[in-house]
């Protein structure tokens, strides 16, 4: 992904020549090493794991999670949390079927979905910044409300067709490379540029690192925070569309579990829940690890229980690694 280093990673610069240097290097890239280890071990243990078609599968599953994780990273960076992403995804997917199901509808579908995502992000952001509601609760509540609205809209089960172009985006491949990977690359590049190269990103890190400082240096912290929630909402909506195109049939399961998975992926990738610390690249690596592990479990023929248990172990081990590093 991007090689940009985040600003202010609190890693003391190693003294030249010391073993610290190796350790610092190892700890900075450990998450990538971990992913590499999973991939290599997977390749050895399950022959089909590294086959072209399986890699394509994994990529295709990685993309929607990756898109959501990017948005989640924005929110966590400002000391937030977005539990409403899954609900937004499903609602955006419903929007994809709300029109005639032909390609000409695509712009309208896009506009509607992104409008929904932005609106939810706005509500989340306003609750957090204006009413001081804790992000956990604010987004939990919008998640529930949005689900109700969606159910009322669809009477309980979405129905209708997704425009074919979304099928292409969601499930098409070109020489084994899924089209949706392009989508992710664009989103990731834009996200990384916004976070690591732009003034907005700098404002975001300052706001997350110390909101009082942000206030004192004239950063409109509330607006920055609001923007982070809107980004998360919009990206969740886009991920919802990509997932809707994955099968072409929309149901209430679109996005299920993404709220916790995206938080876990970000944390596994080194984004600190205490705010102000983490990168897009790290978060995406975290997401890749989750996808690789769940795929590997299936490839190894392990029971579904093993997948759940393994995920739990990975969460704790990876997260404790970052804490150990911070000490």
């Amino acid at each position, binding site marked *: 992904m991007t090689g940009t280093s985040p600003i202010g990673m609190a890693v003391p610069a190693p003294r030249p020549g010391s073993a610290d240097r190796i350790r610092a290097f190892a700890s900075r890239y450990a998450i990538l090493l971990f992913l590499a280890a999973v991939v290599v071990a997977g390749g050895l243990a399950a022959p089909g794991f590294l086959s072209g078609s399986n890699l394509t599968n994994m990529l295709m599953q990685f993309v929607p999670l990756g898109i959501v994780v990017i948005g989640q990273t924005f929110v966590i960076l400002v000391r937030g949390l977005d539990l409403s992403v899954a609900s937004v995804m499903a609602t955006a997917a419903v929007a994809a079927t709300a029109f005639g199901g032909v390609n000409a509808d695509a712009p309208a579908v896009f506009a509607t979905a992104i409008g929904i995502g932005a609106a939810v992000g706005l509500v989340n952001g306003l609750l957090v910044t204006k009413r001081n509601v804790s992000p956990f609760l604010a987004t939990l509540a919008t998640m529930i409300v949005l689900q109700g609205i969606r*159910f009322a809209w669809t009477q309980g089960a979405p129905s209708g067709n997704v425009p074919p172009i979304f099928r292409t985006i969601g499930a098409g491949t070109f020489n084994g490379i899924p089209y949706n990977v392009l989508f992710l690359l664009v989103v990731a590049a834009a996200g990384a540029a916004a976070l690591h190269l732009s003034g907005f990103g700098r404002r975001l890190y300052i706001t997350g690192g110390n909101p009082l400082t942000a206030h004192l240096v004239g950063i409109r912290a509330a607006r920055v925070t609001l923007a982070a929630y809107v980004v998360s909402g919009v990206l969740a909506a886009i991920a919802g569309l990509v997932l809707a195109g994955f099968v072409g049939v929309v149901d209430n399961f679109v996005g299920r579990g993404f709220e916790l998975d995206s938080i876990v992926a970000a944390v596994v990738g080194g984004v600190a829940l205490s705010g102000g610390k983490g990168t897009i690249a790290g978060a995406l690596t975290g997401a890749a690890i989750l996808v690789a592990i769940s795929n590997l479990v299936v490839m190894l023929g392990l*029971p579904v229980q093993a997948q*759940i248990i393994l995920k*739990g172990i990975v969460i704790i081990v990876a997260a*404790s690694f970052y804490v150990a590093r911070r000490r």
Partner: protein
Amino acid sequence: MQTRTLRLPRFLAGGRAALLVVVALLILLFVLGASVSDRFATTGNMLNVYEQSAGLALVSLGQTLTILTGGIDLSVGSVISLLSMLTSGLIAGDEAMVIPVVAGVLVLGALIGAANGVTIVATGVHPLIVTLGTGAIVQGVALLYGLGPVGSVPISFDAFAYGTFPGGISIGATVALALFLLVSFFLNNTRTGRRIYAIGDDPHAADLMGLPRRRILVGVYAASGFFAALTAVYLVSRFNVGQPYTGANYTLASITPVVVGGTMLAGGRGGVIGTLLGVYLVSLLNNTLNFLDISSHYQLVVQGLVIILAVSVYVEKQRGLA
């Protein structure tokens, strides 16, 4: 300079505004329900609401403790599921097994909770992440134990959930109520209780003061696990059987009454009495919505809005520059 605010009795201290909001909402719902149906405001229906509060009450009681320390326990759902399966699976319809199995399950719940606490203390990872992880592990174990309902319990076992004292007062809900009062007393009048508030208020200061923060945390998560186990036993009593997803909904559901009842997610402020009122609010809300004939879709909307309403009314001004 000190403003003399009205002092509530000690057990109500903390999140005063919250309690007033919850009580106001309770009254509002009651009036609303009574105005649409003359069957609503009957003793029978109110006892019914009371009875329905028990499960949520038990699990929220433990959750209040973890949140008071500034943490959270997202493993309760899985723990309830696993332990409900163990309860019915091991009792397997045998009257003689009831007492040993229930005792064992309660101990096991406390042990799982303690393991959460130890992991949190030993790794320093945020409890949200740790318990998410252990929750996944426990869920996996539950599915290993069985993919569907396991075992059964003797008919008499349902007394906990459905049994009543004379006058139709639910046994389960009354047990929960008694436990709330007990824990409230504990929090306000024992050393450990007060220290739970202290470590939630400022963990760093607690360390420098030499408070046994780690031990208390382990104890608090053990308590959360214990109450999850008790919830599991209650649900087996209510459902006659344990199932692999029985507890799933309780993970997030257990948090709502806590925060609606005025306990701050940041820790150090609040109390279990607020949670109890929060539980009654949720219970009454469900009942009222069923009486109002509102389509189930809008019920979700209403629930979400109630959370937002209750919580955003009494959020604290963030301590800032002045």
